[in-house]
């Protein structure tokens, strides 16, 4: 049964527009989104599989299924030209977690979640069309996990992440046609499956205080035999067309960076829980975006542009207040630094330091069934960049996103 649900989710839902730094999507649990996506220093329930496998040993047996809908818009102003907006398809990152206790000390779990991805659609008319029309990047992590309660105060856990993904990139060719629609290129490919890991330690020195440390490793997503296809090639002259032979394939690698998180949880009262998290994301792995072609495309067998991302920190705070035994209200905020240095902005990820503000609620329908709802508002700083080091598109970008989400929990 569970595997059928997983298959269904995987095939019908899109991963989200990247609304965290770079192409990271930090929407791993509806309860935690409501709390500013803190959770490394808490027992978050089944989603500890993601936040801190070390805390999973204390989670109740159960299954969680949740999803968010990212409604995002990006405004673009070319350097002193007219304005464009990217109307992005609604992204729907999702999460499924199941936890089961083998005995008092050991619990096993399986998580399926989407920590990276991006969908952005600028269309084929805008100023930067030769840089990008559309990008869709998807990554799904499947993580079997085991957690062990070493002592009353200390838990450890580890999981293996199995990653599948795909990329689709479309742009207008920088070649002059003889009139008619401009010719375009589309790169489309599925990634080879890749493995990584997720480790966590959870420590509760007192009844009120808990600390957590977790590390999710880098995963390189590799496309080996992606398809290169063209559109409107007939509008190019015969000699120009010969630069774009049929049947070319591409190879590319994209790093999904490591994340090291430290979190603190504090039960201020019986009803009020406070949490803070700091994460360091190893973005510096992303040095260049490089495509290798099996046949020359536009006369070149490679296309490389520098990215030179920087490692970044994310700072989060969150709170949950139990109004009644059944109802919990949540709020949180975070500040997420951009990994994109000046001069390297691209229309794929027109990134800037972003501010997130969230609210949420949880409601227990009965002993076994509960729901979580969240709403996250993300506002990225307006950013003007020459984009002269990244083959990007110069101009000013401003992104905001509204992300409602819902999850169903079944505990037993």
């Amino acid at each position: 049964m569970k595997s059928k649900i997983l298959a269904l989710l995987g095939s019908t839902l899109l991963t989200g527009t990247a609304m965290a730094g770079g192409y990271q999507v930090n929407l791993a649990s509806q309860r935690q989104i409501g709390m500013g996506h803190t959770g490394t220093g808490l027992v978050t329930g089944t989603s500890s599989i993601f936040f801190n496998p070390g805390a999973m040993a204390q989670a109740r047996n159960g299954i969680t299924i949740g999803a968010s809908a990212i409604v995002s818009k990006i405004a673009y102003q070319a350097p002193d030209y007219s304005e464009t907006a990217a109307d992005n398809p609604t992204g729907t990152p999702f999460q499924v977690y199941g936890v089961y206790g083998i005995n008092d000390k050991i619990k096993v779990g399986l998580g399926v979640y989407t920590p990276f991805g991006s969908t952005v659609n600028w269309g084929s008319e805008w100023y930067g069309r030769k840089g990008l029309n559309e990008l869709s990047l998807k990554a799904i992590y499947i993580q079997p996990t085991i957690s062990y309660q070493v002592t009353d105060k200390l838990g450890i856990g580890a999981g293996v992440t199995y990653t599948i993904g795909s990329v689709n990139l479309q742009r207008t060719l920088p070649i002059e046609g003889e009139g008619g629609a401009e010719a375009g290129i589309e790169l489309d490919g599925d990634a080879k499956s890749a493995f990584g890991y997720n480790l966590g330690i959870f420590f509760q020195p007192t009844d009120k205080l808990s600390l957590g440390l977790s590390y999710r490793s880098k995963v390189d997503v590799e496309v080996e035999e992606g398809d290169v296809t063209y559109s409107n090639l007939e509008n190019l002259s015969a000699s120009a067309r010969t630069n774009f032979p049929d049947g070319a394939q591409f190879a590319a690698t994209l790093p999904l960076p490591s994340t090291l998180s430290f979190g603190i949880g504090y039960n201020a009262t019986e009803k009020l829980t406070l949490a803070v998290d700091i994460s360091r994301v190893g973005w510096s792995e992303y040095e260049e975006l490089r495509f290798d072609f099996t046949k020359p495309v536009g006369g070149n067998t490679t296309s490389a542009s520098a990215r030179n991302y920087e490692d970044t920190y994310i700072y989060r705070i969150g709170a949950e207040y139990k109004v009644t035994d059944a109802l919990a209200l949540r709020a949180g905020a975070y500040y997420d630094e951009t990994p994109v240095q000046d001069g390297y902005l691209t229309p794929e990820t027109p990134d800037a330091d972003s501010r997130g503000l969230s609210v949420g609620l949880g409601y227990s329908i009965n002993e076994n069934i509960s729901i979580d709802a969240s709403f996250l508002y993300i506002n990225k700083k307006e950013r003007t960049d020459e984009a002269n080091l990244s083959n990007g598109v110069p101009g000013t970008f401003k992104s905001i996103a509204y992300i409602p989400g819902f999850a169903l929990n079944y505990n037993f």
Partner: protein
Amino acid sequence: MKNFVYKSGMLALFAGVLLTSCDPEIDVAEPTSGTADFSSYVAVGNSLTAGYADGGLYLEGQLSSYPALLAQQFQAVGGGDFTQSLFTEAQRNGTGYLRLVGFGAPAIPGGSPTPITEAVKTELAIRAAVGPNPKLPVFLYTKFTGNVNNLGVPDMRISEIKNNNLANPQNFDPQTGRALFFPQFERVAATAQQSYLEYVQANVDAAEPTFFSNWLGNNDVLTYATSGAFSSTLTDVATFQANYSELIDVLTANNAKGVVATIPNVTAVPFFTTVGPTLKAGLKAKGIPAIAILTGKTATRVPLPVDNIKDATGGTALIPLTASAYIPLLGAPGGKYWRDISKTAFPGNPTAGLQYFLGTYGIDTTQAFGTALNPWPSSLILDETEQAEIATRTTELNNIIKAEAQSNNLAIWDANAYFNSIQNGFTRSGVFYSPAYIRGNLFSLDGIHPTPRGQAIMANEFISAINAKYNARIPKVDETQYRAIVLP
């Protein structure tokens, strides 16, 4: 009660978030003319200003000339109408131009394909053929009458702005039969005796410009350079100073503000950088260590070691684009080059011209081309000494341009610095630009004049200079709307 406060607080927060405007917005400062007034704009210059491209002046090039694009952008800050001496639609190909029709086999095995160009000869604006030899005529173009704002005239140079014989279609050198007038100036001048300075004065009187651009001066060094320092001359500093100053006085007489541009490093254009590497590789492939060349305007022969030809690996000697027709002839007897140059230098009597050249330079066309008795001609090579001479003069003339601009409080676009800065190319919005022939997107098929895309990029550089000087905010041109070279 506490619950109520909490719940309503949360609701208020929710509502507040939802009510925030749904779409992101970027605040853009309104365009402004700053301290300048763009209501009447005139542009002074040469072929670059006229919109000349692909070896000719034709309607498409005129419409995408940088002054036309500037005038279009000035509209956002109070700019007025801008008239150009456009060819009619029926005569849209103007003087004729080069079109890329295909690519031939690489000149050397493994090299780049050789572009094949063809002259466009239909829909021309030719009204008459003049000159002493009907077989080698000079064409006169359909007259354009009326005042214009774009005063760009191909061939014009600062040294000649007071010459009263440049629009005179009877002005031929009696000895050689070579035209000494500029047919494209004859096309627009009011009378055969009008000088360029008078032409500028007349149009300034009519337009009463509040703003001008002046990018004249390139031909004062370029014409000498493209001839391989064989014909033409570098304008002397004193003449340039006097004439430039007089021209600026005419333009600023009504307190007009303006922008001037410097002379680019004329040897960094594809006209000089495309053929040399091919020649070098070709000679190396054949194992020829050196060729004999003529130098300067003398009959002196010197050896040119192959390594001296400039390519990416080194060397200094530049080979002009015009040499590409003669490279395949190296090593075989013949005098094609001398027959060709006799037609352009002595159109009145090419046979006499050929004898003159062969005699003066001691050419034996029965010998292999490229050897001491039949050397590679001086006009097809620009050596290190000649380049240094041109560079020095360019700097001297640019210093005059900058000093004049400063003393008249004008904006300066330092085109020399700009083109030096892009020698290795740059990427803008997913398109790579460089000074490379054809694939660099900036330069047209003549290797000297920009493509419409190149004109748009230059217009944006002008706008940056104007905005900075006059505290203006003139919107820039979307260069992606203008074409680069269309491949056949």
